[in-house]
Protein backbone atom coordinates (compact mmCIF):
# COMPACT_ATOMS: atom_id res chain seq x y z
CA UNK A 1 0.00 0.00 0.00
CA UNK A 2 1.61 3.27 -1.09
CA UNK A 3 -0.64 5.36 1.18
CA UNK A 4 1.75 8.32 1.16
CA UNK A 5 1.30 8.97 -2.54
CA UNK A 6 -2.52 9.07 -2.34
CA UNK A 7 -4.26 12.45 -2.42
CA UNK A 8 -7.00 12.99 0.22
CA UNK A 9 -9.69 12.39 -2.40
CA UNK A 10 -8.06 9.15 -3.52
CA UNK A 11 -7.77 8.03 0.07
CA UNK A 12 -11.45 8.83 0.63
CA UNK A 13 -12.49 6.86 -2.46
CA UNK A 14 -10.19 4.00 -1.47
CA UNK A 15 -11.82 3.87 1.98
CA UNK A 16 -15.49 4.26 1.09
CA UNK A 17 -15.77 3.25 -2.60
CA UNK A 18 -13.05 0.65 -3.01
CA UNK A 19 -13.87 -1.27 -6.21
CA UNK A 20 -11.96 -4.45 -5.38
CA UNK A 21 -13.48 -4.72 -1.90
CA UNK A 22 -16.97 -4.03 -3.24
CA UNK A 23 -16.56 -6.62 -6.01
CA UNK A 24 -15.38 -9.26 -3.53
CA UNK A 25 -18.25 -8.78 -1.07
CA UNK A 26 -21.02 -7.89 -3.51
CA UNK A 27 -22.47 -11.44 -3.65
CA UNK A 28 -22.88 -11.68 0.14
CA UNK A 29 -24.26 -8.13 0.36
CA UNK A 30 -26.80 -8.95 -2.38
CA UNK A 31 -27.83 -12.08 -0.49
CA UNK A 32 -28.23 -9.90 2.58
CA UNK A 33 -30.37 -7.44 0.63
CA UNK A 34 -32.57 -10.33 -0.48
CA UNK A 35 -33.08 -11.45 3.14
CA UNK A 36 -33.91 -7.87 4.16
CA UNK A 37 -36.47 -7.68 1.35
CA UNK A 38 -38.01 -11.03 2.29
CA UNK A 39 -38.34 -10.27 6.01
CA UNK A 40 -39.68 -6.79 5.21
CA UNK A 41 -42.46 -8.19 3.02
CA UNK A 42 -43.37 -10.83 5.62
CA UNK A 43 -43.47 -8.20 8.39
CA UNK A 44 -45.64 -5.79 6.40
CA UNK A 45 -48.14 -8.43 5.22
CA UNK A 46 -48.55 -10.31 8.51
CA UNK A 47 -48.40 -7.18 10.68
CA UNK A 48 -51.02 -5.30 8.70
CA UNK A 49 -53.38 -8.30 8.45
CA UNK A 50 -53.10 -9.12 12.15
CA UNK A 51 -53.69 -5.45 13.01
CA UNK A 52 -56.80 -5.40 10.82
CA UNK A 53 -58.16 -8.59 12.40
CA UNK A 54 -57.58 -7.22 15.91
CA UNK A 55 -59.27 -3.90 15.10
CA UNK A 56 -62.29 -5.80 13.71
CA UNK A 57 -62.46 -8.01 16.82
CA UNK A 58 -62.41 -4.85 18.92
CA UNK A 59 -65.45 -3.55 17.01
CA UNK A 60 -67.58 -6.30 18.62
CA UNK A 61 -66.94 -4.61 21.99
CA UNK A 62 -66.62 -7.83 24.03
CA UNK A 63 -65.04 -6.45 27.22
CA UNK A 64 -62.35 -9.11 27.94
CA UNK A 65 -61.31 -9.27 24.28
CA UNK A 66 -61.09 -5.48 24.02
CA UNK A 67 -59.05 -5.35 27.21
CA UNK A 68 -56.53 -7.92 25.91
CA UNK A 69 -56.21 -6.11 22.57
CA UNK A 70 -55.57 -2.77 24.29
CA UNK A 71 -52.93 -4.30 26.58
CA UNK A 72 -51.24 -5.98 23.59
CA UNK A 73 -51.24 -2.77 21.53
CA UNK A 74 -50.07 -0.56 24.40
CA UNK A 75 -47.23 -2.82 25.52
CA UNK A 76 -45.83 -3.34 22.03
CA UNK A 77 -46.11 0.37 21.23
CA UNK A 78 -44.27 1.33 24.44
CA UNK A 79 -41.43 -1.23 24.30
CA UNK A 80 -38.34 -0.69 22.14
CA UNK A 81 -38.35 -3.53 19.53
CA UNK A 82 -34.70 -4.33 20.30
CA UNK A 83 -35.64 -5.14 23.92
CA UNK A 84 -38.35 -7.55 22.77
CA UNK A 85 -35.99 -9.08 20.21
CA UNK A 86 -33.37 -9.82 22.87
CA UNK A 87 -35.95 -11.31 25.26
CA UNK A 88 -37.33 -13.60 22.54
CA UNK A 89 -33.97 -14.57 21.07
CA UNK A 90 -32.00 -15.12 24.30
CA UNK A 91 -34.77 -15.87 26.79
CA UNK A 92 -37.09 -18.32 25.04
CA UNK A 93 -34.43 -21.01 24.27
CA UNK A 94 -34.03 -21.55 28.04
CA UNK A 95 -37.68 -22.58 28.27
CA UNK A 96 -37.38 -24.86 25.24
CA UNK A 97 -38.46 -22.53 22.42
CA UNK A 98 -35.58 -21.83 20.02
CA UNK A 99 -36.33 -19.41 17.22
CA UNK A 100 -33.87 -18.56 14.45
CA UNK A 101 -32.78 -14.93 14.10
CA UNK A 102 -34.95 -14.75 10.96
CA UNK A 103 -38.07 -15.99 12.76
CA UNK A 104 -37.37 -13.73 15.76
CA UNK A 105 -37.19 -10.59 13.61
CA UNK A 106 -40.27 -11.61 11.63
CA UNK A 107 -42.38 -12.37 14.72
CA UNK A 108 -41.29 -9.40 16.87
CA UNK A 109 -41.53 -6.78 14.13
CA UNK A 110 -44.73 -8.36 12.78
CA UNK A 111 -46.34 -8.11 16.22
CA UNK A 112 -45.03 -4.54 16.68
CA UNK A 113 -46.53 -3.46 13.37
CA UNK A 114 -49.76 -5.28 14.28
CA UNK A 115 -49.97 -3.22 17.49
CA UNK A 116 -49.64 0.08 15.63
CA UNK A 117 -51.85 -1.08 12.75
CA UNK A 118 -54.59 -2.12 15.18
CA UNK A 119 -54.63 1.39 16.70
CA UNK A 120 -54.66 3.01 13.26
CA UNK A 121 -57.45 0.76 11.89
CA UNK A 122 -59.42 1.25 15.10
CA UNK A 123 -59.11 5.04 14.80
CA UNK A 124 -60.34 4.64 11.20
CA UNK A 125 -63.31 2.49 12.22
CA UNK A 126 -64.39 4.88 15.00
CA UNK A 127 -64.14 7.91 12.74
CA UNK A 128 -66.76 6.51 10.33
CA UNK A 129 -70.06 8.22 11.14
CA UNK A 130 -72.50 6.16 13.25
CA UNK A 131 -75.20 6.96 10.68
CA UNK A 132 -73.34 4.63 8.33
CA UNK A 133 -73.72 1.77 10.83
CA UNK A 134 -77.40 2.49 11.38
CA UNK A 135 -78.16 2.76 7.67
CA UNK A 136 -76.29 -0.48 6.93
CA UNK A 137 -78.00 -2.40 9.74
CA UNK A 138 -81.46 -1.06 8.77
CA UNK A 139 -81.09 -2.48 5.26
CA UNK A 140 -80.88 -5.91 6.92
CA UNK A 141 -77.11 -6.44 6.98
CA UNK A 142 -75.78 -8.30 10.03
CA UNK A 143 -73.20 -6.59 12.26
CA UNK A 144 -70.37 -8.47 10.56
CA UNK A 145 -71.70 -7.69 7.08
CA UNK A 146 -72.04 -4.01 7.94
CA UNK A 147 -68.49 -3.96 9.30
CA UNK A 148 -66.95 -5.71 6.29
CA UNK A 149 -68.93 -4.19 3.43
CA UNK A 150 -69.83 -0.71 4.67
CA UNK A 151 -67.56 0.46 7.47
CA UNK A 152 -64.15 -1.05 6.60
CA UNK A 153 -64.00 0.25 3.02
CA UNK A 154 -64.51 3.80 4.34
CA UNK A 155 -62.23 3.30 7.37
CA UNK A 156 -59.33 1.83 5.41
CA UNK A 157 -59.17 4.88 3.16
CA UNK A 158 -58.41 7.05 6.17
CA UNK A 159 -55.71 4.71 7.42
CA UNK A 160 -53.57 4.56 4.27
CA UNK A 161 -51.32 7.53 5.09
CA UNK A 162 -50.48 6.81 8.77
CA UNK A 163 -50.21 3.10 8.04
CA UNK A 164 -47.73 3.64 5.20
CA UNK A 165 -45.50 5.81 7.41
CA UNK A 166 -45.61 3.33 10.27
CA UNK A 167 -44.97 0.34 8.01
CA UNK A 168 -41.87 2.05 6.55
CA UNK A 169 -40.52 2.93 10.01
CA UNK A 170 -40.97 -0.63 11.29
CA UNK A 171 -39.70 -2.31 8.12
CA UNK A 172 -36.46 -0.32 8.40
CA UNK A 173 -35.98 -1.99 11.78
CA UNK A 174 -35.24 -5.31 10.07
CA UNK A 175 -31.68 -3.93 10.31
CA UNK A 176 -31.88 -4.86 14.02
CA UNK A 177 -31.44 -8.47 12.85
CA UNK A 178 -27.74 -7.73 12.66
CA UNK A 179 -27.61 -7.56 16.49
CA UNK A 180 -28.70 -11.22 16.81
CA UNK A 181 -26.51 -12.39 13.93
CA UNK A 182 -28.92 -12.33 11.00
CA UNK A 183 -27.04 -12.03 7.69
CA UNK A 184 -29.38 -9.36 6.36
CA UNK A 185 -28.16 -6.35 4.39
CA UNK A 186 -26.62 -4.64 7.44
CA UNK A 187 -25.37 -7.91 8.92
CA UNK A 188 -23.61 -8.95 5.69
CA UNK A 189 -22.09 -5.48 5.35
CA UNK A 190 -20.71 -5.29 8.90
CA UNK A 191 -19.22 -8.77 8.51
CA UNK A 192 -17.61 -7.74 5.22
CA UNK A 193 -16.33 -4.54 6.83
CA UNK A 194 -14.55 -6.38 9.61
CA UNK A 195 -13.06 -8.94 7.22
CA UNK A 196 -11.83 -6.37 4.72
CA UNK A 197 -10.87 -3.60 7.16
CA UNK A 198 -12.51 -1.19 4.77
CA UNK A 199 -15.67 0.94 5.02
CA UNK A 200 -16.84 0.32 1.44
CA UNK A 201 -19.24 -2.58 2.25
CA UNK A 202 -21.00 -0.39 4.80
CA UNK A 203 -21.26 2.42 2.27
CA UNK A 204 -22.74 0.00 -0.28
CA UNK A 205 -25.27 -1.21 2.32
CA UNK A 206 -26.26 2.36 3.23
CA UNK A 207 -26.80 3.16 -0.45
CA UNK A 208 -28.76 -0.09 -0.90
CA UNK A 209 -31.05 0.80 2.02
CA UNK A 210 -31.73 4.20 0.51
CA UNK A 211 -32.44 2.58 -2.87
CA UNK A 212 -34.85 0.13 -1.18
CA UNK A 213 -36.67 2.66 0.99
CA UNK A 214 -36.49 6.02 -0.81
CA UNK A 215 -39.23 5.02 -3.31
CA UNK A 216 -41.47 4.11 -0.35
CA UNK A 217 -40.76 7.43 1.39
CA UNK A 218 -41.66 9.28 -1.82
CA UNK A 219 -44.83 7.18 -2.21
CA UNK A 220 -45.74 8.03 1.39
CA UNK A 221 -45.46 11.73 0.57
CA UNK A 222 -47.84 11.25 -2.34
CA UNK A 223 -50.21 9.12 -0.25
CA UNK A 224 -50.35 11.85 2.40
CA UNK A 225 -51.78 14.37 -0.04
CA UNK A 226 -53.96 11.81 -1.81
CA UNK A 227 -55.62 10.19 1.23
CA UNK A 228 -55.40 13.05 3.71
CA UNK A 229 -56.00 11.98 7.30
CA UNK A 230 -58.67 14.11 8.96
CA UNK A 231 -56.99 16.89 10.92
CA UNK A 232 -58.37 19.48 13.29
Amino acid sequence: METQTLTPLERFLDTFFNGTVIARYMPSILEGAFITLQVSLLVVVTGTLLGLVLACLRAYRIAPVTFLIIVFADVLRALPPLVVILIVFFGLPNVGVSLSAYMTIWIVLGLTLAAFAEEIFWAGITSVDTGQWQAARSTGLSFTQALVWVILPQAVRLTVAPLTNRAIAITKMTALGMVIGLSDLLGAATTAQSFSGNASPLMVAAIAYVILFLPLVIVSRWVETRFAWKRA
Partner: protein
Amino acid sequence: MEALQQQFFNLEIMRAAWPMLVDGLVMTLLICAIVIPLGLLSGIAAALLSLSHRRSVRWPAVAYVDFFRALPPLVLLIFVFSGLPFAGIRPSPLEAVAIAFLLNNSAYYGEIYRAGIQSIGAGQREAARSTGLSSAQTMVYVVLPQAVRNVLPDLISNTVEVVKLTSLASVVSLAELLYQADMARSVTFNASPIVAAALIYLVILWPFVRLVSRMERRLA
Protein backbone atom coordinates in the same frame (compact mmCIF):
# COMPACT_ATOMS: atom_id res chain seq x y z
CA MET B 1 -44.71 -22.32 34.45
CA GLU B 2 -42.00 -22.54 37.09
CA ALA B 3 -39.36 -22.51 34.35
CA LEU B 4 -40.95 -19.45 32.72
CA GLN B 5 -40.93 -17.62 36.03
CA GLN B 6 -37.33 -18.65 36.73
CA GLN B 7 -36.21 -17.51 33.31
CA PHE B 8 -38.13 -14.26 32.89
CA PHE B 9 -39.28 -13.03 36.30
CA ASN B 10 -36.50 -14.17 38.61
CA LEU B 11 -36.74 -11.58 41.38
CA GLU B 12 -33.39 -12.48 42.92
CA ILE B 13 -31.57 -11.89 39.65
CA MET B 14 -33.54 -8.71 39.04
CA ARG B 15 -32.56 -7.43 42.48
CA ALA B 16 -28.89 -8.28 41.85
CA ALA B 17 -28.97 -6.52 38.48
CA TRP B 18 -30.83 -3.48 39.82
CA PRO B 19 -27.76 -1.20 40.46
CA MET B 20 -26.55 -1.84 36.88
CA LEU B 21 -30.01 -1.08 35.53
CA VAL B 22 -30.16 2.19 37.46
CA ASP B 23 -26.79 3.23 36.00
CA GLY B 24 -28.14 2.35 32.57
CA LEU B 25 -31.33 4.30 33.14
CA VAL B 26 -29.31 7.40 34.08
CA MET B 27 -27.37 7.09 30.81
CA THR B 28 -30.62 6.59 28.85
CA LEU B 29 -32.04 9.75 30.41
CA LEU B 30 -28.81 11.62 29.61
CA ILE B 31 -29.04 10.52 25.96
CA CYS B 32 -32.68 11.66 25.88
CA ALA B 33 -31.73 15.01 27.41
CA ILE B 34 -29.24 15.51 24.55
CA VAL B 35 -31.07 14.12 21.53
CA ILE B 36 -34.66 15.25 22.17
CA PRO B 37 -33.98 19.01 22.45
CA LEU B 38 -31.53 18.79 19.52
CA GLY B 39 -34.15 16.99 17.45
CA LEU B 40 -36.96 19.38 18.33
CA LEU B 41 -34.82 22.41 17.39
CA SER B 42 -33.16 21.02 14.26
CA GLY B 43 -36.58 19.81 13.10
CA ILE B 44 -37.84 23.40 13.03
CA ALA B 45 -34.86 24.33 10.87
CA ALA B 46 -35.49 21.39 8.51
CA ALA B 47 -39.18 22.34 8.24
CA LEU B 48 -38.51 26.02 7.53
CA LEU B 49 -35.90 25.14 4.89
CA SER B 50 -38.15 22.59 3.19
CA LEU B 51 -40.93 25.22 3.01
CA SER B 52 -38.66 27.91 1.57
CA HIS B 53 -39.86 29.83 -1.48
CA ARG B 54 -36.46 29.39 -3.09
CA ARG B 55 -36.19 26.18 -5.02
CA SER B 56 -32.41 26.07 -4.46
CA VAL B 57 -33.08 25.87 -0.70
CA ARG B 58 -36.26 23.79 -0.73
CA TRP B 59 -35.10 20.91 -2.90
CA PRO B 60 -31.89 20.08 -1.01
CA ALA B 61 -33.86 20.32 2.25
CA VAL B 62 -36.55 17.92 0.99
CA ALA B 63 -33.85 15.57 -0.34
CA TYR B 64 -32.11 15.66 3.07
CA VAL B 65 -35.37 14.83 4.89
CA ASP B 66 -36.28 11.99 2.52
CA PHE B 67 -32.75 10.55 2.57
CA PHE B 68 -32.67 10.29 6.34
CA ARG B 69 -36.23 8.96 6.48
CA ALA B 70 -35.14 6.19 4.09
CA LEU B 71 -31.99 5.21 6.00
CA PRO B 72 -32.55 2.88 8.99
CA PRO B 73 -31.33 4.58 12.22
CA LEU B 74 -29.14 1.58 13.11
CA VAL B 75 -27.38 1.72 9.74
CA LEU B 76 -26.77 5.43 10.26
CA LEU B 77 -25.47 4.88 13.79
CA ILE B 78 -23.10 2.08 12.75
CA PHE B 79 -21.92 4.16 9.82
CA VAL B 80 -21.12 7.11 12.08
CA PHE B 81 -19.53 4.95 14.77
CA SER B 82 -17.53 2.44 12.75
CA GLY B 83 -17.41 3.96 9.26
CA LEU B 84 -16.15 7.47 10.08
CA PRO B 85 -13.00 6.23 11.90
CA PHE B 86 -11.81 5.01 8.48
CA ALA B 87 -11.83 8.68 7.46
CA GLY B 88 -9.85 9.65 10.55
CA ILE B 89 -12.84 10.88 12.56
CA ARG B 90 -13.26 8.91 15.79
CA PRO B 91 -16.45 9.80 17.62
CA SER B 92 -17.01 8.38 21.11
CA PRO B 93 -20.12 6.19 21.46
CA LEU B 94 -22.07 9.11 22.95
CA GLU B 95 -20.92 11.48 20.20
CA ALA B 96 -21.84 8.91 17.54
CA VAL B 97 -25.31 8.53 19.06
CA ALA B 98 -25.76 12.32 19.23
CA ILE B 99 -24.71 12.78 15.58
CA ALA B 100 -26.79 9.88 14.21
CA PHE B 101 -29.87 10.92 16.18
CA LEU B 102 -29.47 14.55 15.12
CA LEU B 103 -29.50 13.54 11.43
CA ASN B 104 -32.39 11.11 11.85
CA ASN B 105 -34.50 13.24 14.23
CA SER B 106 -34.18 16.47 12.28
CA ALA B 107 -35.75 14.67 9.32
CA TYR B 108 -38.62 13.10 11.31
CA TYR B 109 -39.44 16.13 13.48
CA GLY B 110 -38.99 18.30 10.39
CA GLU B 111 -41.77 16.47 8.55
CA ILE B 112 -44.09 16.88 11.53
CA TYR B 113 -43.44 20.63 11.87
CA ARG B 114 -43.85 21.02 8.11
CA ALA B 115 -47.31 19.46 8.25
CA GLY B 116 -48.13 21.74 11.19
CA ILE B 117 -46.96 24.92 9.49
CA GLN B 118 -48.88 23.99 6.34
CA SER B 119 -52.04 23.53 8.41
CA ILE B 120 -52.02 27.26 9.30
CA GLY B 121 -54.01 29.33 6.82
CA ALA B 122 -52.39 32.14 4.87
CA GLY B 123 -54.86 34.55 6.51
CA GLN B 124 -53.04 34.19 9.84
CA ARG B 125 -49.77 35.14 8.25
CA GLU B 126 -51.25 38.06 6.32
CA ALA B 127 -53.02 39.39 9.43
CA ALA B 128 -49.81 39.15 11.46
CA ARG B 129 -47.78 40.89 8.77
CA SER B 130 -50.36 43.67 8.42
CA THR B 131 -50.05 44.47 12.14
CA GLY B 132 -46.41 45.28 11.45
CA LEU B 133 -44.68 42.06 12.55
CA SER B 134 -41.67 41.05 10.48
CA SER B 135 -41.85 37.69 8.71
CA ALA B 136 -39.53 36.15 11.32
CA GLN B 137 -41.72 37.50 14.15
CA THR B 138 -44.80 36.19 12.34
CA MET B 139 -43.27 32.73 12.20
CA VAL B 140 -42.15 32.69 15.86
CA TYR B 141 -45.13 34.36 17.54
CA VAL B 142 -48.06 33.50 15.27
CA VAL B 143 -47.48 30.52 12.98
CA LEU B 144 -45.28 28.17 15.05
CA PRO B 145 -47.34 28.20 18.28
CA GLN B 146 -50.49 27.24 16.37
CA ALA B 147 -48.59 24.77 14.19
CA VAL B 148 -47.12 23.02 17.24
CA ARG B 149 -50.55 22.82 18.87
CA ASN B 150 -52.01 21.19 15.75
CA VAL B 151 -49.33 18.50 15.53
CA LEU B 152 -48.77 17.98 19.26
CA PRO B 153 -49.91 14.31 19.19
CA ASP B 154 -47.43 13.59 16.38
CA LEU B 155 -44.62 15.40 18.21
CA ILE B 156 -45.27 13.41 21.40
CA SER B 157 -45.59 10.14 19.51
CA ASN B 158 -42.31 10.77 17.67
CA THR B 159 -40.62 11.61 20.97
CA VAL B 160 -41.79 8.25 22.34
CA GLU B 161 -40.17 6.65 19.27
CA VAL B 162 -36.94 8.57 19.94
CA VAL B 163 -36.79 7.34 23.55
CA LYS B 164 -37.34 3.77 22.29
CA LEU B 165 -34.61 4.24 19.68
CA THR B 166 -32.05 5.21 22.34
CA SER B 167 -31.88 1.44 22.99
CA LEU B 168 -29.90 1.21 19.73
CA ALA B 169 -27.02 2.92 21.55
CA SER B 170 -26.37 -0.48 23.17
CA VAL B 171 -25.10 -1.70 19.79
CA VAL B 172 -22.20 0.78 19.91
CA SER B 173 -21.60 -0.31 23.54
CA LEU B 174 -22.85 2.86 25.17
CA ALA B 175 -23.80 1.74 28.69
CA GLU B 176 -27.47 2.71 28.61
CA LEU B 177 -30.41 0.74 30.01
CA LEU B 178 -30.57 -2.05 27.43
CA TYR B 179 -26.78 -2.45 27.30
CA GLN B 180 -26.58 -2.87 31.08
CA ALA B 181 -29.52 -5.28 31.06
CA ASP B 182 -27.92 -7.35 28.31
CA MET B 183 -24.61 -7.43 30.23
CA ALA B 184 -26.46 -8.72 33.28
CA ARG B 185 -28.20 -11.30 31.06
CA SER B 186 -24.93 -12.60 29.63
CA VAL B 187 -23.45 -12.94 33.12
CA THR B 188 -26.47 -14.68 34.65
CA PHE B 189 -27.64 -16.62 31.56
CA ASN B 190 -31.11 -15.44 32.49
CA ALA B 191 -33.48 -13.08 30.65
CA SER B 192 -34.90 -11.48 33.82
CA PRO B 193 -32.63 -8.39 33.69
CA ILE B 194 -33.94 -7.58 30.18
CA VAL B 195 -37.50 -8.14 31.35
CA ALA B 196 -36.78 -5.69 34.19
CA ALA B 197 -35.44 -3.19 31.65
CA ALA B 198 -38.59 -3.74 29.57
CA LEU B 199 -40.71 -2.94 32.63
CA ILE B 200 -38.73 0.28 33.18
CA TYR B 201 -39.32 1.34 29.56
CA LEU B 202 -42.99 0.44 29.98
CA VAL B 203 -43.38 2.52 33.15
CA ILE B 204 -41.78 5.55 31.47
CA LEU B 205 -43.43 5.32 28.07
CA TRP B 206 -46.84 3.76 28.65
CA PRO B 207 -48.47 6.99 29.98
CA PHE B 208 -47.36 8.79 26.83
CA VAL B 209 -48.62 6.00 24.55
CA ARG B 210 -52.05 6.29 26.28
CA LEU B 211 -51.94 10.08 26.05
CA VAL B 212 -51.25 10.00 22.31
CA SER B 213 -54.08 7.51 21.75
CA ARG B 214 -56.50 9.79 23.57
CA MET B 215 -55.34 12.95 21.80
CA GLU B 216 -55.58 11.29 18.40
CA ARG B 217 -59.08 10.04 19.06
CA ARG B 218 -60.18 13.56 19.97
CA LEU B 219 -58.78 14.98 16.76
CA ALA B 220 -60.19 12.37 14.40
